[in-house]
């Protein structure tokens, strides 16, 4: 796991300098503290910061193909590199390292951009072709690894993290108002938008080619569901699956998951696993043990606040599996204290504090000497695990008989807080979830209530900021697109598509995934996001994902072979972290009061100081606070932190120095003048 960075001249511009690349790489030292590499050629410079995991002694980048015409810098892992290397060796390719990175450059030489279809992994990489002077930038299918770029002053500048781009010459950040508005609706921006004007991401499943000054962006993979007929049948219930078919599906899923886990254990360093106490991570840990790994270290987050704590289940599971278990227990104060550092890593506002404990957890992993952990992300999205899928199913069921006195009461199973209100809860449940209930043909039926509710916090924007959003909106552009064939998919699959493309890729794998693990030099690997597992899940009949209101049905079937019944039958409990008490407690951090002060809020230009003052008063009085207020608080604080750290007070760190292990490959024509100053 690593970071990459680079500069390519698209037009006449000073040659990228080694100093500029050293500066960009220094910004992401946390992602790859072990070794560094720089490639320089006419009008182009590439960089890599390396966290050594595979081929430790031979894998320093940049790495080239046999004749030195192709040069790669890579962030990530290619888990099927062993098989791919054997295939390429049969075709005559010669390898000089034991590293997966070298396999990618040879695969590109052999297959061109089609090489991406053969890669099973999590990656973002850049390959420079010296022969045709083209740059190939690619990102994995669901965006496990980040990749950003901007075009400025005749240059393409790209990097694994935005802070590297901002450290490049002549680049500065400006908050994108629509990005903030999107985050206050969807919990993230919609790709390719980032929180900063002019800086985009390479969308998941896409590659970018820059050649002769032109840039083209191409999709090579997208989430598609190939179970249209089956899913329709399952909804009508007219054609039950045979027992034999169920067994076939289960066995195939089981084998794929085992192999997905097995190839993710490939590393020249020890591999650990996260253990949340839930079904997904418990199944992974159990399979690792079954695969013959004699010693397994597992890691969990626990909370002092019992409302959020799952440690009983985690400890039970660790004891059952016989793992060496490690726990970090987070207090409200811990979360509040670490929040600014987490925002430095996420580079985008948040509406949840959940990434913070994940950051504390990866620190524990790092401190215990681990660089790699297996994690359970993806199961909820690809196997229908979230309550939002059930909520949509119940609302559709209710919509078929709106006058029913009991159908909507099924929602109480999902929202125990409402259920606790008794009859009152029922009345409000009907009123709240009944909104738009009959619009079952709407493509965003599953998510419309959540988004509408989240939009309520747009009221905190200042008038001026709201006007800027409106102006940008006038300029056009769609929020998010629905793919061809979307309307033919099943209801569950439509909801899954939105959850995968927006929540998973843009938030869970980013702010709550890559950024908070790599912030402590730890790589997360997700077996449920193995391309074979994802594509298999997307062929499954809906009822094998959600059976009645039982989520992840097929996974539970597999898990029943490994886990105690209490675990594999257990209802999912969403992972959440405390919010307002993390910021307003006996030890409210100074930065909270300072950022939320009237002068600071006014100076930001983003939020209405009166509205923020009223929210703060409410929180300080200890009044009951709902989820919407919690989200507003995190959203406001994090937006102000992003503005401060990346716009008004951005400070590049010291560039890589002679003390760092930097491999420099300079392929420039000799005597070509290069600009030595830091502005080049």
């Amino acid at each position, binding site marked *: 796991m690593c970071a990459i960075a680079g500069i390519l001249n698209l037009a006449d511009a000073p040659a990228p300098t080694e100093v500029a690349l050293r500066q960009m790489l220094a910004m992401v030292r946390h992602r790859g503290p072990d070794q560094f590499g720089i490639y320089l050629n006419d009008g182009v410079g590439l960089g890599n910061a390396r966290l050594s995991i595979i081929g430790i002694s031979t894998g320093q980048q940049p790495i080239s193909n046999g004749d030195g015409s192709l040069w790669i810098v890579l962030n990530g892992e290619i888990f099927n590199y062993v098989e791919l290397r054997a295939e390429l060796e049969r075709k005559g390719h010669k390898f000089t390292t034991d590293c997966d990175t070298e396999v990618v450059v040879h695969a590109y030489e052999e297959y061109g951009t089609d090489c991406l279809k053969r890669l099973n992994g999590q990656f973002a990489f850049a390959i420079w072709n010296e022969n045709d002077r083209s740059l190939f930038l690619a990102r994995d299918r669901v965006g496990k690894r980040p990749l950003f770029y901007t075009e400025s002053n005749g240059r393409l500048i790209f990097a694994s993290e935005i802070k590297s781009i901002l450290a490049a010459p002549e680049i500065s950040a400006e908050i994108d108002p629509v990005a903030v508005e999107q985050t206050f609706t969807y919990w993230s921006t919609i790709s390719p938008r980032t929180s900063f004007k002019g800086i985009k991401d390479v969308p998941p499943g896409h590659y970018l080619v820059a050649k002769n000054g032109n840039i083209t962006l191409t999709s090579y993979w997208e989430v598609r569901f190939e179970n249209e007929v089956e899913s329709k049948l399952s909804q009508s219930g007219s054609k039950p699956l045979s027992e034999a078919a169920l067994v076939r599906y289960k066995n195939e899923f089981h084998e794929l998951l085992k192999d997905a886990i097995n190839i993710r254990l490939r590393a020249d360093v020890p591999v650990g696993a996260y253990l949340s106490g839930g079904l997904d991570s418990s199944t992974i840990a159990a399979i690792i043990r079954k695969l013959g790994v004699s010693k397994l270290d597992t890691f969990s987050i626990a909370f002092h606040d019992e409302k959020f704590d799952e440690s009983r289940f985690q400890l039970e599971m660790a004891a059952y599996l016989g793992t060496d278990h490690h726990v970090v227990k987070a207090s409200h104060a811990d979360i509040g204290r670490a929040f600014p550092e987490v925002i430095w890593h996420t580079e985008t506002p948040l509406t949840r504090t959940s990434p913070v404990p994940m950051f504390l957890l990866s620190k524990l992993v790092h401190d215990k000497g681990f660089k790699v952990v297996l994690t359970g992300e993806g199961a909820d999205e690809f196997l229908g695990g979230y309550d939002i899928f059930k909520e949509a199913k119940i609302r559709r069921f209710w919509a078929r008989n709106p006058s029913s006195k009991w159908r909507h009461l099924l929602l109480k199973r999902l929202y125990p807080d409402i259920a606790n209100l008794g009859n009152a809860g029922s009345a409000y449940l009907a*009123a709240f979830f009944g909104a738009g209930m009959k619009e079952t043909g709407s493509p965003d039926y599953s998510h419309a209530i959540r988004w509408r509710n989240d939009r309520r916090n747009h009221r905190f924007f200042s008038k001026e900021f709201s006007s800027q959003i409106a102006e940008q909106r006038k300029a056009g552009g769609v929020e998010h697109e629905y793919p061809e064939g979307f309307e033919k998919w099943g209801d569950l699959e439509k909801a899954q598509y939105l959850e995968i493309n927006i929540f998973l890729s843009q938030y869970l794998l980013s702010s709550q995934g890559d950024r908070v693990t790599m912030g402590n030099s730890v790589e997360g690997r997700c077996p449920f996001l193995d391309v074979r597992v994802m594509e298999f899940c997307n062929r499954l009949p809906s009822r094998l994902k959600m059976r009645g209101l039982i989520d992840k049905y097929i996974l539970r079937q597999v898990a029943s072979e490994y886990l105690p019944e209490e675990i594999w039958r257990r209802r999912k409990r969403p992972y959440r972290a405390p919010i307002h008490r993390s910021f307003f407690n006996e030890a409210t951090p100074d930065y909270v009061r300072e950022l939320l002060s009237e002068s600071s809020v006014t100076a930001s230009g983003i939020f209405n100081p009166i509205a*923020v003052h009223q929210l703060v008063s*409410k929180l300080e009085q200890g009044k*009951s606070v709902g989820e919407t207020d919690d989200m507003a608080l995190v959203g406001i604080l994090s937006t102000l932190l992003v503005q401060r750290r990346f716009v008004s007070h951005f400070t590049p760190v010291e560039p890589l120095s002679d003390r760092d292990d930097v491999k420099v490959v300079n392929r420039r024509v000799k005597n070509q003048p290069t600009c030595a100053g830091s502005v080049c």
Partner: protein
Amino acid sequence: MDEVNVKAQIKKFIAENMLFSGDGFTHADDASLLEAGVIDSIGVMELVTFIGNTFKVTVPPEDILPDNFDSVQKLADYIHRKQA
């Protein structure tokens, strides 16, 4: 307390604790608080607590219904009935 005063207090509370608006409460007295996006299904409990503390009325669970709580007018009427 007359109805005008009761409504003013309700509006002030909603504006400062739910709408977070510097412009006060800008909806009509009979506007649905749910439909206008002023409160969510949990937010109603904030109103229950407020009414209990401010107007010294006891709100039994069976009274927590949109018919009593879903607009400023309905809230004022409800408080009036309870205080009568």
